[in-house]
């Protein structure tokens, strides 16, 4: 199969944009995050008036629960947006997403194995296991896709990711079938939700997200260089292997932690960088911070929407992003941006 990179022209080359482009995009981003955060605190499956929320009384607890949820949504959304942008830049693959490339499935398998065979429980253990699983998955998927003369082409990476996800999830189901506890824990975690998490989780994970986020932003020039292609980047004096390793580490840190905290939330990392790129081009110095902000806004809006769409029950954020993301993914495939 001959996959040419011609379809990726728009990804490879930072497009020159007017100075007003990014400024507007940042302003819209801030406004959107703000609106999303306020909506996430005020709206829910139970309609409570704002005044009741903010005064002492029984509804005060609801406010606290929603505040935790909003904070976690901000962190997870930021991480997923950044991870997606880094991934698409690193692999020069417009279909890259932690869900599609099998990272979520790897994290899930590691966590279910931990619950069932190591008998672990609790947040710290899940985070460590999730990170290990995410790391193993990304290395495996890239190694498999990278074999061969034409290297890790978008189509090969996507299929390798899907294959890894299929393999990992059949092992996950296998463990769950034998182990009732693992099934009960996992079926709630696996759906991807930011609701009902303790405040401790936000406090524990915030530093990891912070480190990962700052590292990602620091790597924006590196990603720009990598986007030129390995030979070009080497010509500019970059150690491409070291650079790739660093970016890969950041992706694993961000996607693995987000997955451990909220379960697999797919498609955020796919949609957000694409939308940002259409507005401001693919200069990673803007693409990364904007993807972070719009990622947070998307997760919060999707989560809020999921709370009000079918009252009194909730549709988890992972489902909502899939509902939005699958048509988007299909559109990308149909438009043939991959040079198929």
């Amino acid at each position, binding site marked *: 199969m001959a996959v040419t990179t011609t379809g990726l022209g728009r990804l490879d080359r930072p497009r020159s944009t007017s100075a007003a482009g990014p400024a507007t995009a940042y302003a819209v981003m801030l406004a959107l995050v703000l609106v999303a955060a306020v909506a996430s605190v005020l709206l829910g499956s139970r309609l409570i008036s704002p005044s009741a929320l903010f005064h002492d009384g029984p509804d005060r607890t609801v406010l606290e629960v929603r505040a935790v949820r909003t904070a976690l949504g901000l962190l997870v959304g930021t991480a997923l947006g950044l991870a997606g942008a880094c991934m698409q830049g690193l692999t020069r693959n417009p279909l890259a997403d932690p869900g599609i490339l099998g990272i979520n499935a790897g994290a899930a398998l590691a966590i279910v194995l931990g619950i069932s065979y190591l008998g672990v429980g609790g947040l710290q253990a899940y985070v460590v296991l999730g990170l290990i699983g995410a790391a193993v998955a990304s290395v495996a998927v890239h190694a498999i896709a990278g074999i061969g003369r034409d290297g890790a082409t978008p189509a090969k990476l996507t299929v390798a990711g899907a294959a890894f996800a*299929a393999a990992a999830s059949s092992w996950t189901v296998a463990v769950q079938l034998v182990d009732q506890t693992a099934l009960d824990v996992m079926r709630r975690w696996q*759906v991807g939700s930011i609701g009902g998490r303790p405040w401790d989780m936000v406090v524990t994970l915030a530093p990891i997200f912070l480190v990962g986020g700052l590292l990602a932003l620091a790597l924006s020039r590196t990603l720009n260089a990598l986007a030129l292609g390995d030979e070009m980047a080497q010509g500019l004096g970059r150690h491409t292997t070291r650079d790739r390793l660093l970016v890969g580490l950041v992706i694993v840190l961000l996607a693995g932690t987000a997955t451990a905290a909220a379960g697999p939330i797919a498609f955020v990392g796919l949609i957000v960088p694409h939308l940002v790129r259409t507005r401001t081009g693919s200069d990673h110095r803007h693409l990364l911070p904007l993807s972070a902000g719009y990622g947070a806004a998307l997760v919060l809006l999707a989560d809020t929407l999921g709370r009000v769409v079918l009252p009194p029950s909730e549709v988890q954020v*992972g489902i909502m992003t*899939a509902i939005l993301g699958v048509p988007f*993914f299909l559109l990308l495939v149909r438009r043939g941006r991959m040079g*198929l």
Partner: protein
Amino acid sequence: MNTLTVATGRARRRRVALAGLGAAFVAAFAARVLLGDYTFTVPDFFRILFGEQIPVSTFILMETKLPRAVMAVLVGLALGTAGSLFQMLLRNPLASPDIVGVSLGASAAGVFAVLTLGLRDDAVSVFAIVGAVVISGVVRWVAGTTGGYRLVLVGVGVAAAMVSVVQYLLARSNTYDVQLALRWLVGSLNSVQWPTIGVLALALAVLLPLLAVLARALPALELGDDAAAGLGVGRHRTDLLLLVGVLLTAAAVAAAGPVAFVAFMSGPIARSLMGGRHSLVAGALVGAVLMLLADYVAAYLIPNTVLPVGIVTGAVGGPFLLWLLARGAATGRTG
């Protein structure tokens, strides 16, 4: 003259491979029925089969071992044929019903019927079949073509949506219902009934001859849509054949649940046995042998626990998938 000798040599090799597969099939069936925790001798087997009542033995053979083995064969034939057919028509070893969302469509519909509509038994099977057909139609329609990677990628996307549906339904149900629904997530032969076998056998008796008639166009189709059209085989023939493949998959899933990766593994194994040529017959036989062996392992791997067969095929099939991908990438033959 020389090419003729090579051609006959290849034909002989294929005949030997088919005969070998046939022998492996008989051996695997015999092993599954006669060996295990309760062994039978061949004369005993035939005496029971022809109606002689031997205490305990008759019951074990007729109610557990034989139905499991027959079901394994039927499901294996259906999935092996469907897998080979898909890979042949779509000219891509990854384009099996497992990967492009057909099995997951059936799963999602089955889980929906069990958990949301509260249906049981046959009604759920009907839902699963409808689900498989509808989802394949969606994939085919969105992809707009049967060539290249596009259909596989669309299938991957739709499969992701189906996984989300299943996880949403599982997360909001109680533990007892979830246990019932898991049957639609992992293929199993653990509670096979003779009537189910009858229905599946009937479906195969209709679908396989139909396929044999339609499949006479296949060597032309494998050249690609354009070449096939040049040879007078229309695009609708491809779609008709795909529909038969979908129905075969759906019938197998409705009877035993989505037994992971059997459809996917059968095609490439059969193809390498046949010296690089696609063969539906070889694919069907490989599927049946895989099912029999996997079910044997599932029944006796862990003492006193009978695993669902889908666990074994999934555990073996996942690494096989990755290996195939790595090998295809190494030889530049992924597409």
